[in-house]
């Protein structure tokens, strides 16, 4: 599946970009129906298109997850728009210590379409509108839990599990203010999300279902700053207000340091908390070295920790226990005049905390695993 997606990911943007190139050439030569327009004048109109595509895979013995993304965007003077398509696939093998559950293999996919428009309102102020819709499970964990509930619910002595069509949409808006010329940027973002999900279930003579629809509001405040000629930083605050839950607060700090002409270090740390007891943090870094004019190689490492989401009082909680994960990898990037390519790969280790649950039906889903993570990305402007 991954290689099939990789082929699509490379061929589609090339074919598409060639098509758009022809269209763009016509527009550039004659942007306003005036024959023989000066190329310099066309360039001054800041007329540019961008094609980007990305394929990412995360693999282990019994779970294979892949994601392909494609984006086409266009900028003309102070207005910019882009549309994107994301396609996720999940291939999973389900096992459970539940004596009534028969092991099975499942496959599902998800399609997400998203659009953005950005308008520069004033010289230093721009507005962005965001809208998106998806159809399918948001992640492989939801698919696992849904298929488990479907099989158990279909046992003759239970009341069944409803047919679920997971989907959702998002709406968002953002203001970006350049409060210091080329040195300080403030962003305020608001988002609304509505998700139809596979609800949790307790099977008795009547099936007890958890939430089927989730409404979320997100508020984000970010400040990007050039602190000195070698350091750029990004500070982000996020608050998420989800129906039926306590508010979640998060902060993320990213710092990029140019050590010299050819070395760059990137650091990132994040912390998240949600009452009554969920807490998570992560730290990571990337060292990147330029090899000549076009090639860069990078080495990255990251650690993540959370306290787990087992918070319901039911004997068979489907929330994950505490998790430690470790990621390391190598990357290579080629940067041309108008095209860029990136490839990264490395192992990813997940280590779940041991818990004492009365009915550990989901312990195989939350088993510690060793994964392989691969990313390929390509972009071209014209």
């Amino acid at each position, binding site marked *: 599946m991954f290689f099939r997606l990789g082929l699509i990911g490379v061929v589609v943007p090339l074919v598409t970009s060639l098509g758009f190139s022809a269209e763009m050439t016509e527009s550039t030569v004659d942007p306003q129906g005036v024959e023989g327009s000066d190329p310099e004048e066309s360039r001054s109109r800041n007329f540019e298109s961008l094609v980007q595509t990305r394929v990412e895979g995360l693999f282990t013995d019994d779970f294979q997850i892949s994601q392909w993304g494609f984006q086409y965007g266009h900028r003309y003077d102070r207005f910019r728009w882009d549309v994107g398509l994301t396609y996720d696939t999940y291939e999973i093998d389900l096992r459970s210590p539940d004596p009534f559950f028969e092991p099975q293999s499942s496959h599902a996919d998800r399609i997400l379409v998203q659009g953005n428009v950005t308008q520069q309102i004033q010289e230093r102020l721009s507005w962005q509108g965001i809208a998106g819709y998806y159809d399918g499970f*948001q992640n492989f964990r939801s698919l696992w839990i849904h298929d488990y509930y479907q099989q158990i619910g279909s046992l003759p002595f239970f009341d069944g599990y409803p047919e679920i069509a997971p989907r959702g949409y998002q709406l968002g808006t953002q203001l970006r203010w350049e409060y210091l010329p*080329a040195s300080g940027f403030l962003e305020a973002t608001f988002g609304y999300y509505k998700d139809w999900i596979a609800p949790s279930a307790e099977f008795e003579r009547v099936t007890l279902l958890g939430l089927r629809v989730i409404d979320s509001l997100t508020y984000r405040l970010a400040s990007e700053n050039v602190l000195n000629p070698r350091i750029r930083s990004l500070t982000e605050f996020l608050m998420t207000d989800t129906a039926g839950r306590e508010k979640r607060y998060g902060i993320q700090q990213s710092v990029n340091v140019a050590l010299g002409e050819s070395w760059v270090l990137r650091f990132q740390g994040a912390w998240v908390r949600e009452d009554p007891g969920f807490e998570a943090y992560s730290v990571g870094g990337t060292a990147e070295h330029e090899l000549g004019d076009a090639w860069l190689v990078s080495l990255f490492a990251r650690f993540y920790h959370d306290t787990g989401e087992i918070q319901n009082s039911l004997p068979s909680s489907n929330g994950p226990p505490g998790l430690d*994960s470790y990621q390391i990898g190598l990357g290579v990037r080629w940067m041309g005049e108008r095209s860029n390519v990136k490839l990264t790969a490395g192992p990813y280790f997940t280590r779940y905390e041991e818990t004492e649950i009365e009915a550990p039906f989901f312990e195989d889903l939350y088993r510690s695993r060793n994964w392989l993570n691969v990313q390929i990305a390509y972009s071209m402007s014209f």
Partner: protein
Amino acid sequence: MRGVGFVGLMALLGAGCQAVPVMQQRLVSKPNMVFSDSPVFSYQSQVLPQIEPGSAMSGGAQAAGCTACQ
């Protein structure tokens, strides 16, 4: 939570009150020094948040935690 707010406010206020002249920004303007959504220059995985419920910073039910648990 107040502590986090205070730290955040101080970070924002201390983030930069003086502009660095553009002519001194050659190194911080290189493509790999800029914070970008471009998949070629983004360093974050789009798939790992499926496993790490506390790592996403972009909202939505997935970012807000598990999508199927209570």
